[in-house]
């Protein structure tokens, strides 16, 4: 997808798509009474920025070898991923209605064999990052100019496989790889810091050989500027710690761990739709 427009137009488009994704993701969760809306909403602005401002892709050729890759390592955030893929043209928007129904291609966690645009199967945490690293190494070996982005949850960073990948990426100077951590500070049951603390996460990644940028994960302009910047002379992989709010956009959901996989009743759904405008 080539976006030929001014910067302010791109930011407007990202904002509009993020809102559409939130509304539709929440509707899917409400209708199916299943899903992970809290993490959908903390990630929505990051994913919208990637698909509608940053990534080079062609939905008509999902296997295009030179496409930029986005790996959704926090695979439970399918509300956000599926609405982004539909809005990006990978499949008809109507397919969203089948979300998690029997035999739906929209499984509770993404499957690359079911849907175009899904780069790898995720769901168990700590899987997407090593796979994204392998994709980026393939690009290094062949000299391809595609870029690889992977989004993990912050609680997900407790899985040791991430640190295996972090060490390899730092040592090999896999500069075409960008890790984004959705730093909403909440995991399924409680805060990350009271569960198994991650701070100082930035220092950890720097110590592993990464360049680290911390930003507001709901600031479309900041996301666009950092994620969209060319690799340029950077010699290290890039870790973007995106400070986010779980449940962002709906007042009664924000910063509440119970909305990790909480589902709305009718009144909650209606209120959310009134707020998401």
């Amino acid at each position, binding site marked *: 997808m080539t976006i030929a427009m001014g910067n302010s137009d791109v930011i407007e488009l990202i904002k509009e798509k993020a809102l559409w994704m939130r509304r539709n993701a929440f509707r899917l969760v409400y209708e199916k009474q299943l899903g992970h809306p809290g993490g959908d909403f903390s990630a929505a602005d990051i994913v919208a920025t990637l698909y509608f401002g940053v990534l080079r892709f062609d939905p008509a050729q999902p296997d295009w*070898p030179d496409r930029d*890759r986005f790996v959704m390592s926090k695979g439970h955030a399918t509300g956000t991923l599926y609405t982004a893929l539909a809005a990006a043209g990978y499949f008809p928007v109507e397919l969203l209605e089948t979300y998690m129904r029997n035999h739906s291609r929209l499984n509770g966690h993404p*499957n*690359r*064999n079911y849907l175009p645009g899904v*780069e*790898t*199967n*995720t*769901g*168990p945490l*700590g*899987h997407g*990052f*090593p*796979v*994204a*690293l*392998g*994709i*980026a*190494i*393939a*690009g290094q*070996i*062949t000299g*391809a100019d595609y870029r690889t982005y992977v989004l993990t949850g912050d609680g997900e960073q407790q899985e*040791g*496989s991430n640190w*295996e*990948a972090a*060490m*390899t990426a730092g040592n090999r100077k896999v500069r075409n790889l960008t890790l984004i951590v959705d730093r909403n500070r909440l995991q399924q049951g409680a805060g990350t810091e009271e569960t198994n603390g991650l701070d100082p996460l930035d220092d950890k990644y720097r110590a592993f050989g990464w360049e680290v940028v911390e930003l507001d994960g709901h600031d479309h302009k900041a996301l666009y500027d950092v994620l969209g910047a060319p690799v340029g002379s950077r010699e290290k992989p890039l870790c973007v710690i995106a400070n986010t709010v779980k449940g962002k956009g709906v007042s009664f959901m924000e910063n509440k761990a119970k909305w990790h996989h909480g589902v709305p009743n009718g009144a909650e759904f209606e209120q959310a739709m009134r707020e998401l405008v």
Partner: protein
Amino acid sequence: MSALPATATERFDCRKAWAETLEALAAEDERIIAVVNDSIGSSNLGAFRDHFPERTVNVGIAEQNMVGVGAGLANGGRIPFVSGAACFLTARALEQLKADVAYAGFNVKLVGQSSGIAYGELGATHHSIEDYSWLRALKQITVIVPADPFETAEAVRWAASHEGPVFIRLSRMPVPMLDAIDKDFVPGKARRICDGDDATIIANGTTVHIAADAAGQLRAAGLSVRVLDMHTLTPLDEAAVLAAAEETGAIVTVEEALVTGGLGGAVAEVTSANQPVPVERVGFPGFLPTGSVSYLFEENGLSPDGIASAVRRAVSRKKG
């Protein structure tokens, strides 16, 4: 490996065939990448690394990352051969084998080195005898257990050309070259080593050689025994198993693996559902005590005598 009585004098380390074949393939196909976990020495990939340094990805001692990186390399259009000690490759990275390779369906080649009980005295942590059971549960992965250098080279060549996940289980134990009735190696199709009417021994990997010796011993004692080399564990050659059941009426399975959930289990599942015949399973009962490879083989019946006894038991259980 002294537990393997000689059917031929010269013995070979299959890792040589593996490494030479991979190098030859890599020279022809730039997509081939070796991915290792500090296992260049045990995988015999020193020469590969020297010839193709840019296509050797050593992630260090990190098996989960190693398999995930393999899946990512496949996403990037490469053909990764992910090679490490079978015990760690399968056990430590089992969820990656499940989610990133089998479920995602990436074109990843996995090579389990020093499998079975090759590490002998190092103990159960370093034995890889549970792997058959785990891998059988992941039906999307073709599992090949070569018995000699010929089968090793054939398996590696086939894996490189096949689109889909493959696991090749290699041993470090020196083995003789098999002398088989079926000269060709066809993945998914058992090789007939020798023929017989009274019973069939189904073996793979290192145990095929012992099975052949057991059959020779039984033949001298008047029992005519077929030996099948079931080099492909998944998908199992069910037709060959059922033909053996129908034509010989008794089966003994022999595997350098747990006696449950592996080759014997697969054969018992197929026969019990379709052509019930006595099946005796020879393998390991569970975690093994400290011992040399030859001791542990002998103690658990993985010897010509032990297999011959199992054949006699199976034959005695035949009805009528």
